[in-house]
């Protein structure tokens, strides 16, 4: 990736030597990524982001099958790129069914089955949710879709590179992924599209990516994605084991150190590096700021921490009330997270919560009512 940036990459569509070198870089990355997800290299379409890949899949598949159906099914906790893409399609005449999830963020495959109609053309269910970590029963849902002749897309942006994803074993028609979710560069992502599946491109133009995504390739970004895929091939399993142990320790011990902590998402079927909680009576951004000052970077799904001033739709859809959703925090283990880091977190976090609870009217209300 650096060598592409330093030497200035040629245009992979050019026939001169620079262009051909760039073509080689792109082709190599395609092979590496295909190995990671067990697809054929020609089934990979490079995109600029997971959001683009999701838009390309949902809109592209729906439009390609418009003559056969106009009904789309997706879960209510999909990434906003799919929620909003579905809303756009709805505005132009498509029908959309949003399947609810249970309190742990799980989609019930039977609910998908029930949602299908003879007019259904595409189903989209994420492989793993980035806010609550839940890993969905994709293989089962793919089987249902296939037997009903419905296209199935899975947003695997949070999953690829972190857990084994095998597009053949899963039986998906399309699947999105992004490099920055597994130590690759931002602005580089991809869509797997099963061979023979028709798709209407979002961008009209040249022949890049077999005509399904026009625009000169982001050669350095693609090189980085390929490299991240190669590293994931080698390290993912061992890394996953290590992180799972840290994650389980955090999930076990945090509620022992702090009262009124709720794990969000599924306790077992979840991403190995992902521990998410709602801390009752306190708001997420306040905790985030204090943790940041202690050198711990976390994310929150609270309304205040988001620019949109809305609590994460994922938490609300899981039946978590607004006040509790405001206390949402997501801890992601990274490659160099150690057991000592968990010790440190478990030491510095309880006083932060205590400090914020001391000024929380909700906590006082609770104390008074329980008296």
């Amino acid at each position: 990736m650096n060598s592409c940036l330093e030497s200035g990459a040629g245009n992979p569509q050019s026939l001169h030597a620079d262009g051909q070198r760039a073509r080689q870089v792109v082709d190599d990355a395609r092979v590496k990524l295909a190995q990671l997800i067990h697809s054929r290299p020609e089934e990979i379409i490079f995109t600029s982001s997971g959001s683009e890949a999701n838009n390309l899949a949902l809109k592209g598949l729906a439009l390609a099958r418009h003559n056969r159906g106009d009904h789309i099914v997706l879960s209510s906790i999909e990434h906003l790129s799919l929620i909003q893409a579905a809303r756009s399609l709805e505005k132009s005449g498509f029908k959309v069914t949003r399947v609810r999830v249970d309190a742990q963020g799980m989609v019930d495959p039977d609910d998908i089955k029930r949602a299908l109609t003879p007019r259904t053309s595409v189903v989209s269910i994420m492989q793993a949710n980035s806010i609550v970590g839940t890993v969905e029963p994709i293989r089962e849902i793919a089987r249902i879709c296939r037997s009903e002749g419905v296209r199935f897309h899975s947003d695997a942006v949070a999953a690829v590179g972190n857990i084994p994803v095998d597009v053949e074993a899963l039986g998906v028609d399309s699947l999105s992924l992004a490099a920055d979710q597994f130590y690759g560069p931002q602005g580089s992502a991809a869509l797997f599209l099963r061979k023979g599946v028709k798709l209407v491109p979002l961008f009209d133009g040249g022949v890049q990516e077999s005509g399904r995504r026009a625009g000169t390739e982001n050669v350095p970004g693609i090189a980085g994605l390929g490299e991240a895929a190669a590293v994931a091939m080698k390290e993912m399993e061992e890394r996953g084991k290590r992180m799972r142990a840290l994650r389980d320790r955090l999930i076990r011990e945090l509620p022992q150190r702090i009262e009124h902590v709720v794990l969000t998402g599924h306790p077992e079927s979840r991403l190995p590096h992902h521990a998410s909680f709602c801390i009752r009576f306190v708001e997420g951004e306040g905790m985030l700021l204090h943790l940041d000052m202690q050198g711990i970077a976390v994310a929150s799904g609270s309304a205040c921490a988001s620019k949109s001033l809305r609590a994460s739709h994922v938490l609300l859809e899981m039946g978590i009330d607004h006040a509790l959703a405001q206390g949402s925090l997501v801890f992601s283990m990274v490659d160099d997270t150690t057991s000592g880091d968990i010790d440190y977190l478990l030491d510095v976090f309880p006083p932060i919560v205590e400090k914020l609870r001391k000024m929380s009217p909700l906590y006082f209300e609770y104390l008074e009512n329980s008296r």
Partner: protein
Amino acid sequence: MMMYTEKVMEHFQNPRNVGQIKDADGMGKVGNPVCGDLMTFYIKVKNDRIADVKFQTFGCGAAIAVSSMVSEMAKGKTLSEAMKITNANVAEELGGLPKNKLHCSNLGADALHAAIEDYRKKNLDLKPEAEKSEPRTHEESDVDSCPYCDGPREGMEEYCTSCQLELTECPECRQAMEKDAEICPHCGATRVRT
């Protein structure tokens, strides 16, 4: 965090006047957990002056800093002086707030004013000439930016020219909210979707 001024961070880390006043002369409660902020102000009044003030806040960094700043500004002021503390004053004292956090400063002044009004209601005979606080008008800065992306706006366009989100007016607080949103980001009013 870069989005907040040093002053905001200082008040957030060392908030003044946190707590409850058990035998408060006035109490004001504003906000709701839907938009994320809840504030309660308690005041003690002596000779028409705010002798003591305490607050409790559930909310973001800005909400905590605003509460702390309002409590500091109010302490020692006469009631009518304290009624004149405006959202703009508070934000200014804090060295500015991110545009999408300005509603926090509204809540701070509102909670203090509610506490003063509560006191006056309880002591009607003491304060016959109780002046009303100015009905809250929206700060220019509130109306001039999209609540979702901070982008500049002129009047009530149907969509934000910066982020292209379709906007409408909240039926409750009259500020801009996303057209399909069920909850107003400013006041937390919930709409029945049609």
